[in-house]
């Protein structure tokens, strides 16, 4: 971008140092300490994909233990034993007493479970959905040259990385990582002797700080740096979704930060914020007492519930961009989408105690939370309905991004609808802490959010690299993922309704009819057997990602080149830039004249009208 132009446009004083931008900044400045929002977006993207792989690896090991409790881990058993010395359990041949391999111990199962949840939520999906996509796409879509605070942006990423490394570091300490689930409820979390919990808390404080800085940056960017003419109602829905998400992070994360800080105090300063009077645990002598375990749950779920909207809103944003583009029609009910998102944001702060029905709440307060929970499902249904209706009468292009975006709709639908029984306390009493819950929220985040994010990767890839990802392998990836995703999570509903609890290293075998022939309510064999099916489906799901990973890297240099800067014939501003966008993004500062989804405008020469062109 020409600097004189920038001067005219922004009218800001430039100091003398200006103009040095054109020197080659060197590898470190360009890729590690970059302040360019696009590089930072890519950094976030690659890091969070790696974390997602790690999270998947953990669950793959756990699934083995669930399906085949006590049997030695194939392939990686001895490797695991080398790295996590003392936490695996050696398996001996019953007859010869020879060592035949290693299984994971129950403690290690707990560690892996806690880390799977934590890594997937805080280090994989949120950074990918919010930070990676947000960073890359939002400034482009609003027509800005960068984020409002580029250096703060860099700091956010570095803090995120640091937090992630501290979290991973806990795998290598004696005692292993945290074991109290991704929720880290006290007093359990405080009393487990491993220092992994300490790492967890410190890492969480760092990650939260990073998210807070990121949230400030996004909101300031969207408020301040919209291009001339980009009014609020011309903002692409993706930006709206990110905007509301940023607010959720900004206001919901601090209470969790407090929750973590107080637990940190309980661990290191001997306080009793969460430790009640008379607590008797052998590993914790001499606590002063007087604390409240429920306080932690309140602070945790005050974040926890908005967090699920942090996971889902950016995904909805991505999906609506792709649907509008590939149906060649305006999104149906743009305003309803925007207002529903705002309402969703508001309400998500006053439903949190639906996660706490079993803590002995009174009837009045639980009525309140049931009511708000039911109300909040309305805007979600409106959003989904708008997206469904948008398909009506469109001439749909079934390319890979669109397939994933389309699959998002029913998958998120299943996830959302199965949530309703969890929102009523009388049905939740039965379903709480069972595999039904696991099935429910995985439908929301895995075939829901992750499908949407994968769709986003296929969709924006040509802008990043100037090349398409392979359509053929994309479709292979899609169909395999779609089938195995459902085979993985669908049976969990049945298991949960049959009463199979979550967080059990033996997958419920201890409660089976076989082991408890006289017990009422023991787990019937047919549900237990599903564990094996699920495990193999999960492995197949993992294998289905291999074409994607290869495609992702192979296509950078070998993919089919794009024909133009706007290969999908899209209206929004990110496509009205050179490919890939240079530092500063636009060749001429964009002005906006039109709404975000002017597809198939009657009487127009072509079937789309970019936002920066007068119609």
């Amino acid at each position, binding site marked *: 971008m020409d600097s004189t132009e920038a001067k005219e446009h922004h009218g800001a004083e430039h100091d003398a140092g200006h103009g040095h931008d054109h020197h080659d900044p060197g590898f470190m400045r360009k890729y590690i300490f970059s302040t360019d929002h696009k590089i930072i977006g890519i950094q976030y993207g690659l890091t969070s994909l790696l974390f997602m792989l790690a999270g998947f690896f953990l669950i793959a090991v756990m699934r083995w233990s669930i399906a085949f409790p006590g049997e030695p881990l194939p392939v990686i058993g001895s490797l695991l034993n080398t790295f996590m010395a003392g936490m695996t359990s050696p398996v001996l041949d019953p007859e010869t007493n020879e060592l035949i391999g290693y299984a994971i111990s129950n403690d290690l199962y707990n560690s892996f479970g806690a880390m799977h949840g934590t890594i997937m939520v805080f280090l994989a999906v949120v950074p990918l959905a919010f930070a990676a996509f947000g960073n890359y796409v939002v400034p482009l879509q609003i027509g800005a040259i960068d984020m409002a605070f580029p250096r703060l942006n860099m700091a956010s990423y570095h803090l995120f990385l640091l937090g992630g490394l501290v979290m991973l570091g806990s795998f290598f300490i004696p005692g292993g990582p945290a074991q109290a689930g991704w929720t880290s409820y006290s007093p359990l979390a405080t009393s487990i002797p491993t220092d992994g919990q300490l790492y967890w808390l410190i890492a969480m404080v760092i990650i939260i700080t990073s998210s807070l800085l990121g949230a400030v940056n996004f909101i300031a960017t969207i408020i301040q740096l919209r291009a001339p003419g980009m009014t609020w109602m011309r903002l692409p829905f993706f930006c709206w979704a990110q905007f509301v998400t940023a607010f959720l992070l900004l206001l919901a994360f601090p*209470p969790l930060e407090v929750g973590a800080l107080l637990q940190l105090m309980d661990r290191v300063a001997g306080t009793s914020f969460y430790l009640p009077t008379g607590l008797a645990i052998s590993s914790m002598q001499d606590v002063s007492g007087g604390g*409240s375990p*429920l306080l932690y749950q309140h602070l945790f779920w005050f974040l926890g519930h908005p967090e699920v909207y942090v996971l889902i809103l950016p995904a909805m944003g991505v999906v609506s961009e792709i649907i509008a583009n590939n149906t060649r029609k305006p999104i149906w009910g743009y305003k309803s989408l925007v207002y529903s998102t705002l309402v969703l944001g*508001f309400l998500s702060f*006053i439903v949190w105690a639906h996660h706490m029905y079993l803590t002995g709440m*009174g*009837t009045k307060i639980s009525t309140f939370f049931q009511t708000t929970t039911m109300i909040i499902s309305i805007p979600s249904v409106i959003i989904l309905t708008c997206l469904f209706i948008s398909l009506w009468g469109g001439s749909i292009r079934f390319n890979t991004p669109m397939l994933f975006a389309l699959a998002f709709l029913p998958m998120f639908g299943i996830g959302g609808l199965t949530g309703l029984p969890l929102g009523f306390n009388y049905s939740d009493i039965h379903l709480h802490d069972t595999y039904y819950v696991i099935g429910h929220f995985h439908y929301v985040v895995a075939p829901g959010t992750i499908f949407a994010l994968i769709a986003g990767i296929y969709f924006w890839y040509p802008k990043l690299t100037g090349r398409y990802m392979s359509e053929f392998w994309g479709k292979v990836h899609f169909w395999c993922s779609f089938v195995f995703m459902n085979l993985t999570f669908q049976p969990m509903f049945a298991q949960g309704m049959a009463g199979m609890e979550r967080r059990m290293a033996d997958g419920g075998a201890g409660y089976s009819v076989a082991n408890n022939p006289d017990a009422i309510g023991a787990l019937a064999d047919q549900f237990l057997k599903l564990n094996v099916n699920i495990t193999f489906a999960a492995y197949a799901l993992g294998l289905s990602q291999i074409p994607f990973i290869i495609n992702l890297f192979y296509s950078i240099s070998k993919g089919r080149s794009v024909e133009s800067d706007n290969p999908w014939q899209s209206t929004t501003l990110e496509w009205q830039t050179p490919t890939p966008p240079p530092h500063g993004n636009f060749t001429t500062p964009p002005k906006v004249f039109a709404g975000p989804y002017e597809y198939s405008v009657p009487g127009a020469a072509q079937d789309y009208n970019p936002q920066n062109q007068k119609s």
Partner: protein
Amino acid sequence: MSGHGPEEIKKAMKIYLMVFGILIVGTIFTVLASYIHFDNFALTVGLALLIATVKASFVALYFMHLIEERQSIYLVLGFTTFFFAGLMILTLWASGDKPLYSVMP
């Protein structure tokens, strides 16, 4: 917050000093009020928090220029107040509302 001419700034400086005086008086009042032992604990708390809120409002309105600030900032603070109130009230309510046949204290 544009157009701060020297005249306005000088006027504002006088206001700052006045607010300073109010804050000192407020502090003294809070301390004095705490030495009066009302029988009603709620009254004691209410009074102390009322004075604190008044003082805080003066700081926010004048020192932080909220009184002449832009709508977008009011909006942000409005949200925050709403969520803050939700956090306070609902947690308290939850801790007070016990099941009918509770064994808990």
